């Protein structure tokens, strides 16, 4: 008994010694929306810098902001900029500020699973709001049928799937719905965890995709890559100019074009329901949330190095994973902002 215990102790001691190397670990947590890209980035960056590992956990944007504020992670990530109250709360707790760094752009798409329907469905803003308000309950409702002539929609109940936890994807989705539907704005509102009128909750973009995939006659909303990589159909959405636009990188970039020219210094900006006939209306930047000051210089330099790499080489991974690259103006502005990290 004692001998075994001793051996186990020794083994752990040895691994401890072997591993007490110079590896620097940085922990981040937050948005699930850019998770496929981030995990790729951090994996690649780790290969380039074997002594640095950036561990990112996709717990949702709300969680990213919360854990950053609690100080349990080194940086956060979110699909919605921190609001003034949250920034103030952080400032009061740590007496430093938070910097927002846009990383890429993405699209939130309505995704569905209707047996027998493979076509890309057209969604009007009214139909989306109606479905998520629980006013439109059957797939063959006129609001859907009129926009999809030639597609045979079943007379089945619509099963709405939404996020179970506080989420930036939800914020983008509800931010859009609030802009196009007064009823939504007044009864539900825009936020990372609204009080849903109908539907099932899935945890993370992963969970919503999984639930939609496994549930016939369901509709959910996820980041484009989740729908693409899982081969579940997604629809087009009618934009502010009245055109049905298929979510694509070009359509997302088009939506960002206006904002890129008038980017505020803190990078906090919403681009849902953007004008322009090519713009996909449910697009958004996604941000890294980085404290202004690090007490650990090694961590600070590592993070600055990563952001610099992310803005240059890192951007090249974006399109392969269905995220739109940052507009050039934004990249230039961010490179200047890196020096604010101290």
């Amino acid at each position, binding site marked *: 008994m004692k001998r075994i215990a001793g051996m186990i102790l020794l083994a752990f001691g040895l691994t401890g010694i072997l591993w007490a190397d110079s590896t620097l670990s940085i922990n981040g947590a937050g948005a699930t929306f850019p998770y496929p890209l981030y995990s790729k980035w951090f994996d690649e960056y780790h290969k380039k810098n074997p002594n640095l590992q950036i561990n990112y956990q996709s717990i949702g944007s709300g969680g990213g902001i919360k854990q950053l*504020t609690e100080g349990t992670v080194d940086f956060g990530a979110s699909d919605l900029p921190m609001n003034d109250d949250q920034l103030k709360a952080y400032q009061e707790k740590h007496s430093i500020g938070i910097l927002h760094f846009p990383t890429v752009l993405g699209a939130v798409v309505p995704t569905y699973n209707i047996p027998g329907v493979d076509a890309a469905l057209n969604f009007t803003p009214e139909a989306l709001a109606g479905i998520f308000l629980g006013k439109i309950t059957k797939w063959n409702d006129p609001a859907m049928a009129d926009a999809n002539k030639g597609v045979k929609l079943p007379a089945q109940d619509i099963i709405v799937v939404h996020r179970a936890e506080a989420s930036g994807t939800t914020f983008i989705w509800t931010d859009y719905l609030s802009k196009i539907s007064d009823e939504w704005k007044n009864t539900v509102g825009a*936020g990372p965890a609204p009080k849903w009128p109908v539907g099932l909750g899935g945890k993370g973009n992963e969970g919503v995709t999984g639930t939609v995939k496994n549930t016939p006659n369901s509709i959910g909303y996820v980041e484009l890559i989740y729908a693409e990589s899982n081969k579940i159909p997604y629809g087009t959405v009618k934009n502010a100019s009245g055109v049905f636009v298929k979510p694509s990188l070009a359509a997302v970039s088009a939506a960002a074009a206006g904002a890129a020219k008038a980017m505020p210094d803190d990078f906090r900006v919403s681009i849902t329901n953007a004008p322009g006939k090519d713009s996909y209306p449910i697009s958004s930047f996604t941000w890294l949330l980085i404290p202004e000051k690090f007490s650990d210089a090694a961590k600070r330099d590592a993070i600055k190095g990563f952001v610099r790499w992310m803005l240059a080489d890192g951007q090249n991974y974006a399109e392969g994973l269905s995220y739109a690259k940052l507009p050039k103006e934004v990249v230039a502005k961010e490179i200047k902002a890196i020096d604010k990290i101290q």
Partner: protein
Amino acid sequence: MATTSKTVPGASPIPGARSFLSRLREGDEIARMITFLFAASVVLVTLLLVFELWRGSALPRHKFGFAFFRTSVWDPIFDQFGALPFIYGTLVTSITALLIAVPLGIGAAIFLAELAPARLSDTLEFFIDLLAAVPSVIYGLLGVFIVIPLMRLYIQPALKSTLGFLPLFQGPAYGVGFLTAGIVLAIMVIPYIISVSREVLLSVPRDQREAALSLGSTHWESTWKVVVPFARTGIMGSIFLALARALGETMAVTMVIGNTPIISASLFSPGYSIAAVIANEFTEATGDLYLQSLIELGLVLFLLTFILNGLARLLILVTSKRGSETALA
């Protein structure tokens, strides 16, 4: 303990003049102190846990009071928190689980205690104990990939077409929901019911059975009318134990309940349980009130299981006492 020797305070001798015996006694004193510290730490940590839950939920307790348990709005945007849908979901899934697990479990326990030859009974009991050791995340895994599709494709449509007139079985067949969670929970708690009930049934004195049989009862009658009533309180105890376990179960439920805070008469409807909402939202609850509301939910869960566990232990104790008293008499 009768043999415990009491150390007389103040009897320790002056340094230098220690006798062999008193030094030993001092060793005992040290051992007693050390082990006492460990034992006390158990109490301390438990108190600390209760205190933390109490302290951590001060905001919602003051702001909402008892309304926390009566309102059903869970809206982090507008800082409104009502626990009713979670309490409802927790109770409904647990009760559904018991409705399935109790008859099955007690039936199996009767078989093991009354019918099966001792060797078979012990072998089966061994398997059932193993079943109790399967971690909940694995039940969740099986729930997601086996129970949910089965429910959606076969069981829920079948229930809908036969019993659909009842409000219990209406609405779209999501696959996830109260009923699915109840079934997964039932599978999880059956081993507890069997183990404890079997033990209690076995402790019923032989002569009770023999008396009933000699009066002309059939085997079943002697079991159902004499042995089971004799063990009734103990069996109730096992049920309470199972209920406590079902109430606090987290992972398996989170994976199959649908995670939507609604109160619905239909068992097909997705719902939410206290443990599941904590698991999903605890790391991301921004704002003190939100976080503390979740902690208050934890406190509620703690109190529920605390009361049930207490009742369960009391009942089991009463039965086994009665059994041994009768056996002696």
